[in-house]
């Protein structure tokens, strides 16, 4: 008898669980049909999970994208990635690059009804300055010595030392309701409150995050009622969602799958040049890579167009400087066009007529592995045998940053990419080429050390004068490009798939999705 009961219980449990699943949620279906225009819902599928909704503690593009629907900063980025005003009506920077003054727009209210004014800005800036747990975005803000309210809608921020990327930092730092910061700071990472065109509704971890139109938004315009963001890591699945209409926008659109969409009139594909540079850093302090001829030979050995075709499925531009073309102060350099003869000659001059064996490191993403294979194939043409070592990200960073001195470093070549805000040329150069940034200190994995370049960078950083900066960055780019501490490969083009009944959604060069005017046509 006991046994029979046990079986029954198990069966019952199974039935129950099936029923529970069946009943758990029914509202996700296609019930919206028949409703009109902006009352509908737009689904945006992205490739990774959102990490946090705390705007002052976010490093990943997707979290930023979602936040930008709900939150706004004093400044912001336009569609080219350059700085523009948002909550600030106007701003000015002092000659010595230490004082930043903002005039604020009036009549703006947070989603919880709090008023946006100088006091609110101060609360936000002080949170970023003081809260120890905000480890990501305090850069720049830790240089602030004082925040002074000049009037209800005017505020001045003073820095200890000049920091040329400060405007970018102000664009990234979005404003939260002061009430939320003071009373419910634990809720910030889960459900932020801002001034943006949409307000937070719900976030089911790993599944979706939904925002809803904020009807009292300070900028007028037609917008869709609801937007749901879904993380969908699998490329094929994302494409499938776009085709079925389950998603109205997918980003990134995997380039390999582009062909599938050809001739599909319901889908529009847009191509945006990005600020993502792809390259192989070469350890310039290690033999034989310390010889510039070897590094140049490597650059001449690689066919950039073939790289873009094979590794990036044809979407991308050659990396023709040390920074991508969308980045501030970019100047085009003379590209190392593929020239096997010249490369071999350079090798011969350097004493390696018969080639040698080298090692390339990279993480385990399939794109990286593809790229490393490409480098391997290309360098084989000039007699250099490349061994590929792909390592899991954590292991890789330990291997690279575990070396305390350049002598300890085992790194020869690293296949990697770099991206920074288009407006932030400092971050696109200093961590990569300044001698202070040599590991473990920062990401100068080329172990590039050029005292001239160091001093130009320092100088550019300490002035507010744009012409001067442009001049300095021109010199920096041409010098480094000739020194070839990298194999310069390409700049990604971002691909976005949008269904043709959608308007007002665009992706900026950093991959952020702007939805402030999102609507159905």
């Amino acid at each position: 008898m006991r046994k029979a009961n046990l079986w029954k219980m198990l069966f019952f449990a199974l039935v129950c669980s099936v029923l529970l699943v069946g009943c758990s949620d029914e509202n996700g279906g296609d019930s919206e049909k028949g409703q009109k225009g902006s009352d509908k819902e737009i689904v945006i599928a992205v490739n990774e999970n959102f990490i946090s909704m705390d705007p002052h503690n976010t490093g990943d593009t997707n979290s930023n994208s979602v936040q930008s629907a709900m939150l706004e900063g004093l400044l912001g980025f336009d569609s080219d990635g350059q700085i523009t005003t948002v909550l600030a009506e106007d701003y000015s920077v002092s000659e010595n690059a230490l004082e930043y003054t903002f005039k604020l727009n009036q009549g703006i209210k947070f989603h919880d009804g709090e008023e946006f004014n100088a006091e609110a800005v101060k609360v936000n800036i002080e949170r970023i300055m003081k809260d120890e747990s905000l480890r990501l975005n305090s850069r720049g803000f830790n240089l602030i010595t004082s925040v002074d309210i000049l009037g209800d809608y005017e505020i001045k921020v003073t820095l200890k030392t000049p920091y040329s990327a400060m405007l970018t930092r102000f664009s990234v730092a979005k404003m939260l309701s002061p009430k939320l910061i003071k009373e419910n700071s634990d809720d910030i990472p889960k459900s932020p409150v801002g001034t943006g065109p949409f307000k937070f509704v719900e976030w089911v971890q790993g599944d979706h995050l939904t925002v809803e139109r904020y009807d009292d938004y300070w900028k007028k315009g037609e917008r869709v009622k609801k937007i749901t963001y879904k993380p969908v890591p699998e490329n094929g699945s994302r494409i499938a969602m776009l085709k079925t209409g389950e998603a109205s926008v997918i980003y990134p659109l995997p380039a390999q799958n582009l062909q599938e969409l050809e001739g599909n009139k319901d889908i529009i594909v847009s191509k945006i040049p990005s600020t993502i540079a792809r390259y192989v850093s070469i350890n310039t302090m290690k033999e034989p890579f310390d010889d510039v001829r070897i590094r140049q030979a490597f650059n001449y050995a690689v066919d950039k167009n073939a790289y873009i075709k094979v590794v990036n499925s044809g979407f991308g531009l050659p990396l023709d400087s040390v920074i991508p073309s969308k980045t501030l102060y970019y100047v085009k350099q003379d590209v190392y066009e593929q020239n096997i003869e010249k490369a071999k000659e350079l090798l011969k001059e350097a004493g390696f007529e018969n080639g040698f064996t080298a090692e390339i490191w990279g993480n385990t993403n399939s794109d990286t592995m593809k790229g490393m294979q490409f480098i391997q194939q290309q360098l084989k043409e000039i007699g250099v045998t490349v061994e590929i070592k792909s390592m899991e990200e954590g292991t890789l960073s330990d291997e690279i940053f575990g070396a305390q001195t350049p002598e300890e470093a085992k790194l020869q070549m690293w296949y990697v990419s770099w991206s920074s805000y288009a407006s932030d040329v400092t971050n696109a150069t200093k961590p990569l080429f300044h001698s202070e940034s040599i590991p473990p200190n920062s990401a100068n994995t080329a172990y590039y050390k050029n005292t001239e370049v160091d001093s130009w960078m320092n100088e550019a950083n300490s002035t507010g004068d744009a012409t001067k900066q442009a001049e300095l960055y021109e010199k920096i780019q041409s010098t480094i490009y000739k020194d070839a501490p990298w194999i310069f490969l390409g700049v990604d083009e971002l691909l976005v798939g949008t269904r043709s009944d959608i308007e007002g959604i665009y992706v900026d060069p950093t991959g952020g999705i702007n939805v402030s005017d999102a609507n159905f046509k």
Partner: protein
Amino acid sequence: MEFTSTVTEKKQVVPKKKYSPVREFWVNFKHQKTAFFASMFILLLIIIAIIGPSIAPYDPYKPDYDATLQGPSSEHILGTDEYGRDIFSRILVGTRITLSVSTSSVLLGAIVGTVLGIMSGYFGGWLDRIIMRSSDVMFAFPDLLLAIAIVAVLGPGLNNVIIAVSVFSVPSFARLVRGSTLEAKENTFVEAAKSMGAPHKRIMFKHIFPETVSSLIVFVTMRIGTAIIAASSLSFLGLGASPETPDWGAMLSMGRDYLGTASHVVMMPGIAIFLTVLAFNLVGDGLRDVLDPKTKNE
């Protein structure tokens, strides 16, 4: 009772000619048609594994950026991959890697798992508890984490893939064998052997082990398939052979981005894996019918 003994029970049936065990196996196995056919396929694979590199029509590593992702044609009978490499040549050359990695890892896992399983089931008590609980712990550890750890300690490479995959299978084998051992232990002949004072080692491997063989064989063949797929996931995670190696699993995983556009890149190694796993399973079933003492005389 007047009579106490019985008529001598001798061998039941004497075959007309005495076959050697190998010959007898061969005769029986030949009658298992599908299994026989599948084993011919595996034999073919083994031959390819040996001579593959010399019969491949193209250099499996040589890229041709002007001929990427081409479908099957008379020039490239299985098409080309994202670098324009000949997929047919890569599959031929990859046979050796795929076969050796999967079989050796399963065998390694099976040997260790079986020994642990028999000891656990046979001795019971604290030994059983330790072995089974450790296998619980191993199970609770997701394979991937284990793989990362193993490779982190040993470094990437094919040998470590073998170790990682065999580590996955040890607890499965141990539990399976323990289950059959528990049952076999209840059999009279085991108790008989025990009471006659046979040494443990002899009882375990002479009496109990044969009882576990049938399920073991089925499981080994299944695991070979699983191992091919597991090794391919590891390759995909970058923890396997270096990415240029024409390992089928790696080809399949690397090619999955092209499923919608150039499906042959995924299909061809996929079919190779499918057929190989199929062949191993069919051969396993056939072997089971022939080798298993319980099904033998039918």
